[in-house]
């Protein structure tokens, strides 16, 4: 059973044990529109919370993803390189971006739960 956290930068982080899987939210994909390119972090890269870690591009614009928590990248979703539209089609499933081995679980306390994120989006939509 995993817990799902959200960031103010419209990312989700599903945590199982010490591994977090990260992607962008449904709200973010709707705002961005058709995704045409993603740039993913290399496996083994160590990041601190809020470091730039990945890039997502729609037809019109490029946006950065920031590491929701500190850790080391254990896996990137290489399937997105050939089919970035998966991000639009299945944001919280096949459209995941990368997995992190979380180095400081206390940082999860800085993130939002589903209800808090829903309230944030309601104010922006």
């Amino acid at each position: 059973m995993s817990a799902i956290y959200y960031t103010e930068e419209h990312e989700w982080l599903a945590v199982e044990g010490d591994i977090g899987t990260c992607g962008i939210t449904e709200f973010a994909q709707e705002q961005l529109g058709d995704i045409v390119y993603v740039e993913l972090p290399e496996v083994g890269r160590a990041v601190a919370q809020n470091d730039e870690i990945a890039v997502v591009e729609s037809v019109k614009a490029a946006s950065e993803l920031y590491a929701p928590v500190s850790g080391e990248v254990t896996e990137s979703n290489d399937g997105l390189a050939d089919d970035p539209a998966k991000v639009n089609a299945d944001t919280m499933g096949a459209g995941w971006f990368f997995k992190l081995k979380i180095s400081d679980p206390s940082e999860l306390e800085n993130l939002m739960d589903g209800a808090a994120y829903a309230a944030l989006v309601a104010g922006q939509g």
Partner: protein
Amino acid sequence: MNNPHPGRTEENALKTTSLHGLQVELGGKMVPFAGYEMAVNFPLGVLGEHNHTRARAGLFDVSHMGQIRLYGDGRAGALEALVPADIANLGPGAMRYSQLTNDRGGIIDDLIVTNANGGDHLALVVNGANKDGVLAHIQAALPAGMELEHRTDDALLALQGPGAAAVMARLAPGSEKLVFMSCQSAQIGGVACHISRAGYTGEDGFEISMPGNRAEEIARLLLAREEVEAIGLGARDSLRLEAGLCLHGHDIDAATTPIEAGLAWSIQKRRRASGGFPGADIIMAQLKDGAGRKRVGILPDGRAPAREGADVVDGDGKVIGAITSGGFGPTLGGPVAMGYVHAEHGGTGTSLGLMVRGKTLPAKVAKIPFVPAGYFRG
């Protein structure tokens, strides 16, 4: 993720076009653009709208653009003092692309000039973001007896794509026979319109000018045709980029000349010989000797788009230019860009590097347009 909804904080003082209500009704995602709130895309999405326009027909609201009329005897000569195109020999109903130049040969704005068929004026269409400055610039230069009219109550629609002519044949019979860059007056649904065979997507298509208070009913007539979809600003930009067409403020500006921009074709023979437009000394010298830099098409090798502002480098990593428009080309299925490079690097096929997020992406100079034009020349 940063800023997935740009512009939401500055929507207070925005103007609206006659089709604002319809755009909202159709589910348009409204954003600020050129001082107006307009749809960047509709539920079909930028990719779907782009592809629909290339395959069938797309309807664009371009009412933010400035529609200006110039009245008075000697109007062609008065305008020729401001632009390098041959206006005096523009036949009735004919249109020409040109630029308002400054004393350095730079481009204040680009525009379409029409010798209205049977009319008593020249009709100008200028960029929305520049229109107030352009009006003042032209007004200040006009000799006595000329009158400039800003048609603020008129709307402008563009119907673009290979299916556009069949739609126009039904709604304004005869207009489908117009050839590229010509216009006529005609009625659509009982409304007097000016219809031209023109546009900015690289596709065959039409632009329709009409009173703003009738624009919504005409837009609804067009949208009622099954081949027509409403298209937003996002696809308008990707379509014009693939067509290799300049966007003022990006690919051309007050510091770029028409020759650097690859627009020499828009300066007719008589004007090349006679000059008499702002910056003529510089522009005529560049016509003769070439310019030091030129606008080129650029195709990145991989899938990563290079955006406006990215540096262009040579094999040694030396900066030789910059990207002025860049993104994803849906018809090409990959990244596409335009930019300026030193002339010696401007040959088709020349290898370049593009600096994107600190990395050098390999790219090549490519012919523009990237997608063949579908203009109807009769």
